[in-house]
């Protein structure tokens, strides 16, 4: 394991210190917690937005805190959902009287911990609503399993609910638009190499020099298929086809596209992939309204990428374009 760290068991605490020190104009660290909140929190009469999850996905989630986006991010240990007490601290810190909205990725751990926190917060008289993001089409969506995972599409949920809340929407309205995004966002990823959880000290899985994993999760959960590395064009085609198979586009419909790097993949490769993604969408008469190419939801130093499509209507376009001062999603 080659990492720029101090104690492998202290990486989350050390990271939080470094984040808070980097961006004091935007965020602050709640002392004795693993919670980062917007500098102005709580904001009177604004719905407070809380997201979070295991660490190792940076800039998710603290990078999305700021005017027009999140109010708080709760950081768990690496790849481990944060605990209910920490989520509760975040909820309390951002409650400005209009209620608090939780953005949860669909993992058993996240759902359990956030829901327990919601129960505790409600017991303290805070109104809490939530959305569960499950954009990953790599996973069969079945009521007999835990369902689809939440991956990079979550960032669009942050952006759009953030814009909605910033405009003064009610908790119910925020929930409605969040559900609209979840209903219209789909993603799929692939990996060339694995990341290493610092405290584990060794890679989460092994891929041979010629192998890739299609449909990987952002914690290195295995995907649909392990096979020989294809060209960027083939990868783009495979990801886009799987994503589109689960969406309902008509000719001329508009979409936002996110090509997300998982950690170690250079931006150059993301752009090479994007060239083909755009070509394929054009062929299918899907109008790309806006494209995002960067690292938005990573998996430590995994090499790989994901592609996300968000089908847009006028409301979503307006909210996507609304200003955001979040460090990692400035609009």
């Amino acid at each position, binding site marked *: 394991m080659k990492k720029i760290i101090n104690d492998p068991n202290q990486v989350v605490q050390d990271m939080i210190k470094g984040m808070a020190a980097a961006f004091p104009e935007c965020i602050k660290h709640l002392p004795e917690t693993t919670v980062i909140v917007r500098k102005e929190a709580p904001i009177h009469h604004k719905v407070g937005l809380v997201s979070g999850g295991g660490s190792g996905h940076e800039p998710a989630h603290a990078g999305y805190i700021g005017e027009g986006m999140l109010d708080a991010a709760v950081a768990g240990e690496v790849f481990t959902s944060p605990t209910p007490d920490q989520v509760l601290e975040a909820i309390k810190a951002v409650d400005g009287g209009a209620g608090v909205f939780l953005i949860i990725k669909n993992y058993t*751990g996240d759902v359990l911990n956030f829901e327990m926190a919601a129960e505790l917060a409600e017991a303290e008289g805070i109104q809490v609503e939530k959305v569960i993001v499950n954009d990953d089409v790599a996973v069969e969506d079945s009521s007999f399993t*835990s369902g689809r995972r939440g991956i990079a599409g979550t960032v669009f949920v942050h952006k759009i609910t953030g814009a909605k809340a910033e405009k003064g929407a009610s908790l119910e309205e925020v929930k409605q638009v969040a559900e609209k995004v979840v209903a219209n966002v789909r993603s799929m990823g692939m990996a060339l190499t694995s990341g290493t959880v610092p405290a*584990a000290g060794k890679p989460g899985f092994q891929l041979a020099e010629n192998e890739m994993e299609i449909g990987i999760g952002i*914690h290195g959960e*295995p995907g649909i298929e392990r096979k020989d590395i294809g060209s960027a064009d083939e990868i783009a085609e495979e990801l886009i086809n799987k994503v589109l198979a689960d969406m309902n586009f008509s000719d001329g419909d508009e979409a936002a596209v996110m090509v997300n790097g998982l950690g170690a993949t250079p931006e150059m490769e993301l752009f090479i992939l994007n060239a083909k993604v755009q070509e394929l969408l054009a062929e299918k008469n899907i109008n790309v309204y806006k494209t995002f190419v960067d690292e938005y939801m990573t998996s430590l130093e995994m090499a790989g990428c994901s592609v996300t499509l968000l089908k847009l209507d006028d409301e979503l376009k307006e909210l996507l374009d609304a200003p955001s001062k979040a460090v990692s999603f400035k609009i």
Partner: protein
Amino acid sequence: MELTVNKGLAWLKTINEKIQEKKDYLTDLDQAIGDGDHGINMARGFQEVEKKVEANDYADVSDLLKDAAMTLMSKVGGASGPLFGTAFLKLSMSLKEKDPVDYPSFSTAVGAAAEGIKQRGKAGQGEKTMVDVWVPMAEYLQNAQEFKPDELETKAKSAMEATKEISAKRGRAAYLGDRSIGHLDPGSVSSYYIFAALAETLQERK
């Protein structure tokens, strides 16, 4: 069987010992079909449990287990934190005002814990989760009339081992579907350590 505060303390310490010793093994199991943090999570959690309960005096076993539950809840995280937290909280609630704890109360309490896990995790038996250890153990304890440490250990072990042959339907391993077959469920293995530690503790002190 008689579970006192002291024996309860010893139980928690023995669990911690086993978990620390098997930390890497549990993480390896989770790397194979999950995200590779189960050993780290459990080791962090039970270390904190030991620290917590050593620093306090407890009037009864229920109080002791409540602190253990709250610590697991706030230190483990992931899926297993709330689930083991719930298990110990249910044990604690079920054992309220039962000190020292006798066999029937204890087996009832394990039943409550198993039920708690099932409800929290919305999981049934046979879905390759810790439920597959807790539910059979609750049934076994209910059926057995007295505490037989060796048998208890053997039962827990075979319940744990049985998770290897089935396909995951809940938790992270569910993403693998049938590809999870052939791997032990990490949470079931740590659940086994909890029961093995119980057997060991109560045997020694008999």
